[in-house]
């Protein structure tokens, strides 16, 4: 099928640098996200861009990180998941 794959059309996920570098939190983020949006690469939490639109807005990553450490933004109404 023709047409390129687009990522991050609906959801944008970001991690504060300090949070991403915390090995324990990074591992936790990878573990809690049900749709594999986080992966630990070289001991750091990274966002798997091709999976971000699968975000089910469960908020588990936000709970797993210190306040403000992870941001999940809904691009279609420009709000942030609390």
């Amino acid at each position, binding site marked *: *099928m023709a*047409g390129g794959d687009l990522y991050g*059309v*609906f959801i944008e996920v970001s991690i504060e640098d300090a949070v991403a570098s915390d090995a324990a939190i990074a591992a936790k983020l990878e573990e809690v996200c049900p749709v594999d949006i986080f992966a630990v690469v070289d001991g750091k939490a990274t966002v798997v861009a091709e999976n971000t*639109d699968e975000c089910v*807005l469960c908020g588990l990553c936000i709970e797993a990180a210190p306040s403000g450490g992870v941001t999940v933004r809904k691009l*279609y109404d420009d709000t942030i998941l609390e």
Partner: protein
Amino acid sequence: MRFYEFESRKIVELAGIPVTEYGFCKTADEAKAAAERIGGPVVVKSQVLTGGRMKAGGVKFADSPEEAAALAEEILQLEINGHIPRGVLVDPKAQVKQEYYAGVVWDGTAKRPLMLFSDMGGIDIEEVAEKHPDHVGRGHVSNLLPISDYEAKKVIAATGVTGSQLNRATPVLARLARLFRDNDMTLAEINPLAELEDGSFVALDAHMEMEDEAKGRQKRLLEGELSIEPEDTREPYEPSEFERSVKAIDSADHRGVIQGKDHGFEGNLGLVIGAGGGSLTLTDAVRSQGGKPANYSEIGGNPSVAKACGLAKEVLGKEGVEKIAVMMSIVSNTRVDIVARGVIKACLELDKDPAETIAIFRIPGAWEEEGFKILDKYGVEYCDRSVSMWEAAGRAVAKIQGAEA
């Protein structure tokens, strides 16, 4: 799952029910050899999973092996109701004294197998039941307890059959009931069950259907005894590229389920539809209101965005598709916002405007408010459960007809 007659014959034979000597053949030469082995006049029957073989010229009689070969050649080329024959069955032309009917069906109301017997075989059993109800015997059997010959005998005796005929037909019906249960059949029929001139009983034709869900646990029969490949779909036609692609997308991702069919569909309105019988209702609703569906589909079980997107892209990629209608009955576990993301993404990835491409989005249910926000952002027309499936389908048809005008 339906079985070809030659497979049904084998299943009957494995259950210890006498059958005439027969040959399943894929070529004219094999048919000739089978006719030589059988000896005497034979009947050559097309092996297709559809009715009306006789009328269509798929069943013919031959007096010699040479004639059997010529007829097989002809029948092997003959398409019946769109079905290409898997082969031909060569059978002896039996000297029949009387034809009977023996069958076992699943009685969904009683939730037990139901044995049926009639002394008027060779014709449609429903017709016999309607016109000659006293010639049809019936009796349920247990799902768990052993099936005794006596239960079968009572059913047969109810039709007035007595004496040696009763004694000889009894094990046939009892074995049929056991094979029905042991092999998870939904239908097991021998019609006609023939009493030959020498008084013996043989199955001249058999028809079996197995519960689809049982395929996994019936591997011994399917793959072992009948050599049926696991990927044998029993479809009468080769799956289209669309069908294969949808299946591949479905298999690659365990989240949710999608199915797509486009055999016999040539319309311009693509359908991304599903949920609890919704697909059939919605396809009918589109057709009944003058719409021309480009495909049939089923989506549900909480698919991922990627899966919904994959299905929508395949539908949109079909030749002639101008718009898609995304509709379901009411969803509980499937999330409206996830499907909305998927179908919109499909449009964007194909450089299409979602507002123009999605004729209507009607999926009421879980997370619909979130879904509506997404649809609002892209200007897609949507509706909630206050708009019936019929009305939503009508709106999609009106939109595409408006675009045609």
